[in-house]
């Protein structure tokens, strides 16, 4: 292989962005139903540790992926229960989810800290397409989950805009009173989409440990990418395809470390390179809020507001 460094970097950006794709699309679905779930980081971490444990126990990364996905969904059930049924403050509930998820994940992961994961995910080179110069190496010489993430994006986009339930979902986030008056169950729609969001966040966490990082390293395994995924939702204006694009942009920042080291640049200390994705995310958020000033592009109107019918 004698691909140029920048090609390898972009390929790494795609891989680094993939957990973000899963998590961001999941969060888009939850937020479109009107529920803000700040617990992405917690769901991803729990997904990651569960995936590791399950993959190690079964010897199958696929089992790991499934287990991680379910773990994320399981934690999301807690958020759905608190925010929909119990009408709790969604921000506080989301934060609680992060704290609990992180605590539980580090607790469960304590014995395996530093162990390398034996059965990782193997790359799947797509014949013909992978032979396209540059693009082939970047996009079609990846592992199967990268391709799966595209499918998730396509399905989510189609579902939201073209189906009956997608319309109901959007109505639920824009105006739950209307959805209710038109005979839709706001609670059910919110539960389902928060949980699906959790499943996808869990899958993102599972991907992170199965394909990205060499071993479980506690909270450092995800190192805040759950929060970046939340920012990505705003960046993507709640649109799945834009989230995919954004995820690769942030993925590039995450992979910059690798690229600059490979290019032999050591003038910039490693710690500063590590700050890059976080600073970039903050910058993007600030610029977005400055430019879109009063128009909240795509943000569901009832985001974060509990819905109760019989209150007056």
């Amino acid at each position, binding site marked *: 292989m004698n691909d140029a460094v920048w090609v390898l970097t972009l390929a790494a950006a795609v891989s680094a962005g993939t957990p973000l794709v899963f998590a961001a699309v999941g969060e888009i679905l939850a937020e479109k139903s009107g529920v803000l779930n700040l617990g992405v980081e917690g769901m991803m971490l729990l997904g990651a540790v569960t995936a590791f444990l399950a993959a190690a126990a079964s010897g199958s990364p696929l089992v790991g992926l499934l287990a991680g996905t379910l773990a994320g969904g399981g934690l999301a059930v807690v958020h759905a229960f608190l925010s929909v049924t119990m009408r709790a403050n969604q*921000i506080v509930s989301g934060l609680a989810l992060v704290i*609990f998820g992180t*605590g539980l994940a580090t607790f469960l992961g304590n014995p395996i800290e530093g162990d390398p994961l034996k059965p990782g995910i193997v790359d799947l080179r797509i014949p013909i397409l992978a032979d396209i110069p540059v693009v082939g190496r970047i996009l079609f010489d990846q592992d199967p989950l990268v391709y799966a993430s595209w499918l998730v994006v396509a399905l989510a986009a189609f579902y939201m805009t073209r189906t009956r339930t997608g319309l109901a979902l959007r109505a639920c986030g824009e105006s739950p009173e209307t959805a209710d008056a038109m005979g839709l169950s706001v609670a059910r729609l919110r539960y389902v989409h928060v949980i699906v969001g959790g499943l996808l966040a869990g899958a993102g966490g599972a991907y992170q440990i199965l394909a990205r990082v060499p071993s479980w390293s506690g909270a450092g395994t995800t190192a805040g990418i759950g929060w970046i995924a939340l920012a990505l939702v705003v960046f993507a204006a709640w649109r799945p395809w834009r989230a995919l694009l954004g995820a690769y942009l942030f993925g590039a920042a995450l992979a910059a470390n690798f690229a600059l080291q490979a290019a032999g640049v050591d003038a910039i200390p490693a710690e500063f390179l590590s700050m890059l994705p976080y*600073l970039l*995310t903050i910058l993007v958020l600030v610029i977005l809020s400055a430019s879109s000033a009063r128009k909240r592009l795509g943000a569901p109107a009832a985001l974060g507001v509990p819905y109760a019918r019989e209150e007056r």
Partner: protein
Amino acid sequence: MQVHLERRLETRTGHRALVTVLSIVAALLLGAIFLSLTGASPLVVYTEMFRAAFLSFYGITDSLAVAIPLILTGLAAAVAFRMQLYNIGAEGQLYVGAIFGSWAALALAPGLPKPLAILLVIAFGALGGALWVLPPALARAWLGTSEIITTLLLNFVALYLMRYLIFGSASFLRDSTTTNFPQGKPFPEEAFLPVLGLTRVHLGLAVALLAAVLLWVLLGRTRFGYDVRVVGDSPGAARYAGISVRRTIVVVMLISGALAGLAGAGEVAGTSHALDPSGLAVNFGYTGIIVAALARSNPLGVVVVAVLLGGLQNAGSALQSIPGGGGVPVEVSFMLQGAILLCALAGELFVRYRLRLRRGLPDELTEGARP
């Protein structure tokens, strides 16, 4: 039968206390499930934790020592919560406060009279924390950028900054005499916070308690506290009353950041006597959020909750070295803290609402069953 929620017209303090206690019990039960999963005996673990935290003199004082930063980060979260602001960057503000405090201790303190030296360290800690929260505060006030994600992401930036200063560079704060494992330069004696006897409880406790009382007066008894509540309750009413929403946001965030910075300076000057990245990165900032939420943003309640959770955290770390602990990792306390918060959130509903049960048939009304 159908469950039906009804808003309570008023909430009672007794109710709140009961719900809090029940939440803790529920969280312990939840924790027991996971403990059993890992093969430990929940009963033994809990007994040992309680013993380690609250049953011996040094256990109690150690718990108090852990409570000091938690009171301060709890207050930091609480003052912002009062205004529906979510500063979840106390973790990073604490690091930066520690960095600033360390600089003051190493650069300014030597040769100064002790009270002045300590004052400088503390003031620089507060300054550092406040500066770190300033960009998110300004972005929130002028551009409406959600402070939640920005303050949180800055935690990572602060963490790497601190690591850079100790591990990544030959900075002023790094100890140049040791060549093996990099660590912070030891502080001069002048910058040490006085401690209580042989315990680990340092002057920071007095600072934290003072901060809690001052904040309680400020929020509950002054015009500023009034403005904070109006802005938090309804920005429309604040605009109507001529209260500057922007200025109030920035001031509250600065107070919040300064409190978290104080916690960091207190840790380095009172406990580690050097900038110690790994000793600082034990979730004091995140736990502060739990403290504030459980205390319902009441500054005096923060003190009580911080002592409880400080005990839990202290017990968690003690557990590893205790024979009966069964090799249960320190993380158990973080898991339990998170579980307590989740259960408390669920419990909040019973404070605000009354549960009524009724049958499916509409013409048969059963009397409301009170929880």
